[in-house]
């Protein structure tokens, strides 16, 4: 599957299927600071991602005040 990361924007390829939770753990990205989005929709943690999926993993922490 194609995974789009942000900040800055870049893409990585992941082979095979994965559950959302497992993918985040694999990439070392905490659930509390990320959302997983597919076709403009949120994908919950227990959902299985297909090898043809294109997903965005969006960080939600912002700095400043």
């Amino acid at each position, binding site marked *: 599957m194609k995974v789009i990361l*942000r900040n800055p924007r870049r893409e990585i390829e992941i082979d095979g299927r994965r559950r959302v939770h497992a993918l985040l753990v694999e990439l070392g990205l*905490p*659930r509390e*600071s990320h959302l997983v989005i597919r076709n403009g929709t949120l994908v919950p943690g227990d959902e299985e991602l297909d090898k043809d999926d294109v997903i965005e993993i969006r960080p*939600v922490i*912002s700095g*400043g005040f």
Partner: protein
Amino acid sequence: MKCRTCRGPAIIELPRHNANFCAEHFLQMCRRQVEKAIHDHDMLQKTDRVLVAVSGGKDSLAVWDMLVELGYQADGLYIALGIGEYSEESREYTERFASERNLKLTVVSLRDDYGYDIPTATKVTGRVPCSACGMSKRHLFDKAAVDGGYDVVVTGHNLDDEAAVLFGNALRWDIEYLARQLPVLPSRHGFPKKVKPLIRLTEREMAAWCVIRGIDYIVEECPMAEGNRHIGYKEALNLLEEKSPGTKSSYYLGFLDRMVPVLATIAATGADSVTPCIRCGAPTGGEEGSVCAFCRLVERSAAHEPVSVELVRKKSRSQKRVQAEASKK
């Protein structure tokens, strides 16, 4: 995974509520949290004229969206900070949001209206960018609220922002800052009332609100936020949250419930006197006949030749991250 409310398929899990929600009931949960914050802290009246401080990020656009939905009369104010592409893009998101919904948006440009920008002010002051930036924004939001006859200024500070600030203040045991870290600042001495309706919602929830509502916002971090201590505090709190969901809200909301009353006497002793700035008339803490910090900043920064973002910015965490990734390959 099923929605707690309707048992339909869920799209988000919220461990801190020990619950999952579908889109519709997630939005309902968010609205209720905002209404509860507004009600519990007496933030807004339905007849108030509200000015929302918008940055083009998820929190400020989400709070504007929610307030309009809840029936408040809320206009927006955007300040063009002149932080390169980041500022240009965030302005586009803000203007698009407002025009698509027919909302009133005022734009103030530091460069066009005051002759400086944040990178230049950072160079001139030699302090962290957020210092000149925060001071400029506070001053201009106050001014716009007073000039425009607004009853209250709304900011998009969320639970993570407040918990991180609280963590920093408690690490330093800065009692005065702790005593003043309130979700409502009443209007006094010519300063407008300021409120934070998102204190019961996390950053992740605000980003989710935007995705579900189809709100495009600037995802990229401000390039000058680097080295900002608050981000480190947020990451530390999120580690605790992951192990023990609900930590952030019990930390911050427990502070409001149980610690703020203890600190109230200290907050009251800080009743300082203010005089109007002799340049702009804004209330200032100095002696009779003094010039406010904002006017001094404008004077020094406008006299300096413009400085680009790249010149004042430290190597960013995101650049480092990409370099680290590249070197692993």
